[in-house]
């Protein structure tokens, strides 16, 4: 034994001149956090553990399902129904008992992201949804941690390294420089909807592990400020360069308090899905029982007498929200439709299961429509 690891285990990689004893030592000191122990996370975790990364953190709140086994190669039939993070940790421990493995059977969120990530040197994004991807990106920007990004769909995958400065130009970029805005959920495809070939996350997740090892060792050409796309059907690789996008940078929460209050779920599922037009509202009024809430302040006009409503001004909405009956569909309105959107955001964050809508254009649109 040398240090905390056995030389014979790592003999093959230590023969590489880029690796050697020194490289192995660097790996043994490294702490890598893998977000998501799914299609990308499984192969990344396997190779990082096998290579001897000293501390590996695994975050996942999901349970193993039979439909995962097609690509999430750490799990077996016997694992179905068990938590992924914990199960993955056991498998890795069996492969390499010489390393530290920490599992978190929970969803990464605003509340825990900074605390989780801060204890690691590098993060691997193996998430399967946009809110988590933007959240992890922003947390890594705030904490100045390198982020190895990967994503897959059907026969195509993307891999990139974010938030790691180019050694010469000192420029660094992040996910938002590549994709400043999340896609419209109505047109947002996921593997659950349109599928993915199992080997693809295997390839992309392994590329993520490769980049992580290169970064830790400080060897080779790292994919910072860049992204590679791989198409398994076409056998094509394309590499793209990314440069900083000032506007996108402005959208990143600037400090911890701003990060804690940033609603990523909401950000990626834009509110216009929950806006209704005055025509639709009129139709709802005649067909359904509604709970209608006026979020304008007490002194505002016009006074509405076309329907029955409850008044909870936006300034009192946080406390007044609990007095809203949640039995019926809820429609919130204000003067122009902006404050009711804000109220909707608050309402949906508290009661995501309740159908609630904001009246587009507010009373201005309603008055116009009536005439």
């Amino acid at each position, binding site marked *: 034994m040398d240090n905390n690891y056995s030389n014979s285990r790592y003999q093959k990689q230590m023969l590489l001149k880029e690796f050697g004893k020194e490289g192995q030592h660097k790996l043994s000191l490294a702490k890598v956090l893998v977000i998501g122990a799914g299609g990308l996370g499984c192969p990344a975790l396997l190779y990082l553990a096998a290579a001897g990364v000293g501390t590996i953190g695994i975050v996942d709140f999901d349970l193993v399902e039979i439909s995962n086994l097609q690509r999430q190669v750490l799990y077996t039939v016997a694992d179905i129904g068990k938590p992924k993070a914990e199960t993955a940790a056991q498998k890795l421990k069996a492969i390499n008992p010489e390393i530290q493995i920490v599992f978190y059977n929970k969803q990464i969120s605003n509340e825990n992201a900074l605390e989780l990530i801060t204890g690691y040197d590098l993060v691997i994004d193996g998430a399967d*949804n946009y809110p988590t991807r933007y959240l992890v990106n922003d947390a890594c920007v705030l904490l100045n941690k390198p982020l190895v990004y990967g994503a*897959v769909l059907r026969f*195509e995958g993307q891999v990139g390294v974010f938030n790691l400065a180019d050694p010469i130009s000192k420029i660094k970029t992040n996910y938002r420089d*590549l994709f400043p805005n999340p896609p419209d959920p109505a047109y947002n495809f996921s593997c659950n909807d349109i599928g993915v070939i199992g080997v693809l996350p295997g390839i992309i997740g392994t590329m993520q592990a490769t980049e992580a090892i290169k970064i830790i060792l400080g060897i080779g050409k790292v994919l910072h400020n860049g992204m590679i796309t791989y198409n398994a059907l076409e056998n094509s690789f394309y590499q793209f360069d990314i*440069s900083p996008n000032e506007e996108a940078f402005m959208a990143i929460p600037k400090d911890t308090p701003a990060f804690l209050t940033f609603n990523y779920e909401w950000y990626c599922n834009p509110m216009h899905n929950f806006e209704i037009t005055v025509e639709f509202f009129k139709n709802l009024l005649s067909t359904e029982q509604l709970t209608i809430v006026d979020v304008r302040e007490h002194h505002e006009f016009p006074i509405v007498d076309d329907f029955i409503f409850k008044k909870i001004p936006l300034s009192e909405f946080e406390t007044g929200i609990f007095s809203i009956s949640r039995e019926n569909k809820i429609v919130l309105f204000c003067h122009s439709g902006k404050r009711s959107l804000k109220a909707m955001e608050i309402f949906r964050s508290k009661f995501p299961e309740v159908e609630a809508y904001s009246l587009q254009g507010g009373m201005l649109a309603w008055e116009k429509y009536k005439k």
Partner: protein
Amino acid sequence: MEINLLSFGQIVDITGKPALKLSGIDNTDDLSKKLIELFPLLKSIKFSVAVNKQVIQKNTLLNQNDTVALLPPFSGG
């Protein structure tokens, strides 16, 4: 003047092919207009544009044989 257009991910479903050639386009703003004219469904999809493998953020002049890639985000993991 002719440019090469590469589509990725779900954009291929809309453009019909991973690679196309387009002519008579001077810059990326013109290209966006032309693309929406040719493929109206592209209007509802967010994607990044790379010219000769560099992701761009503002209108960029296009030259003969330039390669423009349309890159949508993926979320699958």
